[in-house]
């Protein structure tokens, strides 16, 4: 049936994340939040759908998907990463049971379409290119099952995300995107397979319009620039930064920015200076390992031939807390890799170290090599923990898993973690974002929750109070950051306990 002129009712559904390091589920309740970030892909998709269509968003990380939601909808659009696959399966099954058509996109579909082949419409790759074609086919009554293209959409045509769908009070941060893709060639990475190695960026005008749109919603506070590598195209980033700095200053620094970048950021003082001026307060780096041979094996040339610890300290000195990813399980990892990772994380003063077991994600160079070597076992869960060790490692499997658990237990023990936070705060130059401003009214309740839970009922309360006392005497201007990091540490400790008991 042709659906021309029909006012479609579209339900955008974001499946639930399992409880992992990245979910922050033990930390969010302190701030009265349910999820870290809104589903930016679905918000962008919403802006691409016909204005006459009615749209609603259900982020299952924020609230349950009710049967009445599905009954309301003519069609469901879901987007998921690999780690959300179980929840996505449930969504598809529920739609099927109610005869509601479902369209599925996002990274999971891009590399594992066969797992969701029973969905009515599939959008592997980036949907900006294919959604207009789908809408046209739908209106003519001839929609296809799969809308696939190898073309990488021009981000300068990407619309402003539809922030009106988001119940902002439920999130600890908002999100926008400047670029997609990463120029580097890490063997384990699926980003470069999905989004390519030529970083595409939005224009300065687009970015400022998105910031304006977000500002008009009334949102103030953390804002994640969700790029795969914010400095992948430094030529364009250098053009953006002066405008971004100016916008932030004109609007009295309404957002605390954080993003992901490669460690060569440390080599560019000018860029670091501009990021500090624009109120970037945290950056996630893919450090992976301090072992040069392992870095070479995984084709991470950008991390070789440098003093990684000095690079981290340099970035911290520009007012950005460094958060980083680490991996164990490379073929070249030496027997003492676990202690070396622990020592590195301690010395670099990275509070939030996301350590994972190497995982071969579908369609990556690593996947293809291991398949050729006959070492692949399964597809993996995308959680970077024991369940995702989906290949035969060179190191004895149990030794690797035990060593991984030793790292986690060590780095997230309260003493070790609080020491790293203190060191990080000392290294981090305050960029003038006053504690009073960081500590808005809505955080006061959160502060008391922290005092009750971590200061009175937690088994590590002694360490917590000692930490707070020391920070108060050393860097009282950053006490707000210290409390937030204490909460994050609690989350990491709880998740570690959960993994290590498995």
């Amino acid at each position: 049936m042709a659906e021309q002129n029909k006012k479609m009712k579209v339900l955008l559904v974001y499946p639930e994340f399992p409880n992992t390091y990245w979910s922050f589920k033990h930390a969010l309740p302190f701030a009265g939040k349910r999820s870290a970030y809104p589903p930016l892909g679905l918000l962008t998709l919403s802006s691409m759908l016909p204005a006459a269509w009615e749209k609603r968003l259900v982020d299952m990380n924020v609230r349950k998907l009710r049967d009445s939601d599905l009954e309301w909808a003519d069609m469901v659009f879901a987007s998921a990463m690999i780690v959300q696959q179980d929840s996505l399966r449930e969504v598809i099954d529920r739609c099927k049971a109610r005869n509601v058509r479902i369209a599925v996109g996002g990274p999971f579909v891009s590399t594992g379409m066969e797992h969701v082949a029973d969905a009515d419409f599939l959008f592997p790759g980036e949907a900006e290119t294919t959604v207009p074609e789908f809408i046209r086919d739908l209106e003519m009554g001839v929609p296809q099952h799969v809308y696939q293209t190898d073309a990488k959409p021009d981000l300068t045509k990407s619309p402003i995300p539809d922030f009106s769908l988001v119940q902002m009070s439920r999130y600890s941060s908002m999100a926008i995107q400047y670029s997609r893709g990463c120029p580097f060639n890490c063997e384990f990475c699926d980003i470069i397979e999905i989004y390519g190695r030529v970083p595409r960026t939005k224009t300065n005008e687009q970015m400022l319009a998105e910031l304006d749109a977000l500002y008009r919603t009334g949102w103030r506070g953390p804002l994640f620039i969700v790029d795969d590598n914010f400095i992948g195209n430094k030529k364009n980033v250098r053009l953006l930064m002066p405008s971004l700095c100016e916008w932030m200053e004109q609007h009295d620094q309404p957002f605390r920015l954080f993003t992901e970048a490669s460690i060569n950021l440390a080599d560019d003082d000018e860029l670091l200076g501009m990021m500090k001026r624009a109120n970037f307060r945290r950056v996630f780096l893919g450090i992976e390992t301090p072992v040069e041979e392992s870095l070479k094996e995984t084709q991470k040339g950008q991390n070789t031939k440098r003093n990684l610890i000095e690079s981290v300290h340099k970035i911290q000195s520009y007012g950005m807390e460094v958060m980083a990813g680490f991996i164990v399980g490379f073929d070249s990892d030496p027997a003492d890799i676990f202690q070396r990772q622990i020592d590195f994380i301690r010395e670099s003063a990275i509070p939030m170290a996301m350590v994972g077991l190497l995982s071969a994600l579908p369609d990556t160079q690593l996947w293809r090599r291991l398949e050729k070597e006959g070492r692949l076992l399964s597809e993996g869960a995308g959680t970077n923990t024991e369940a995702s060790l989906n290949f035969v490692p060179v190191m004895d499997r149990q030794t690797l898993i035990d060593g991984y658990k030793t790292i986690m237990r060590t780095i997230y023990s309260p003493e070790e973690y609080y020491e790293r936070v203190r060191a990080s705060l000392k290294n981090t130059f305050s960029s003038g974002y006053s504690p009073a401003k960081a500590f808005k009214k809505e955080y006061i309740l959160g502060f008391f929750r922290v005092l009750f839970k971590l200061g009175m009922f937690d088994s590590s309360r002694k360490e917590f109070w000692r930490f707070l006392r020391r920070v108060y005497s050393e860097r009282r201007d950053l006490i707000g950051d210290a409390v937030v990091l204490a909460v994050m540490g609690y989350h990491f400790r709880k998740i570690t306990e959960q993994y290590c008991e498995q």
Partner: protein
Amino acid sequence: MTYVVTELCVDCKYTDCAAVCPVEAFHELSDRLYINADTCIDCDACVPECPVEAIFADSNVPEQWAHWTQINIDEAPNYPVISQKIPALHGPACTGPEE
């Protein structure tokens, strides 16, 4: 801003840099490579690949090779693009390692 191939490349002509460049910014001469300033996106991917450390950001070129920035800008577009690894030239003047 751009990245610059300097004299250290001459007679060596390793091409690991060209193979990792995501935007095909390298151009090939008989004994060296140049970087096209218009194509280069300043991503840094090539820098750690060079066995003789011949590539620098233009803001960071050692003084004795400062004029190489202009040489790259002027000359690169006159030569064909190279985006694959080929055996290094490793001529008599090259002090880098054998491949």
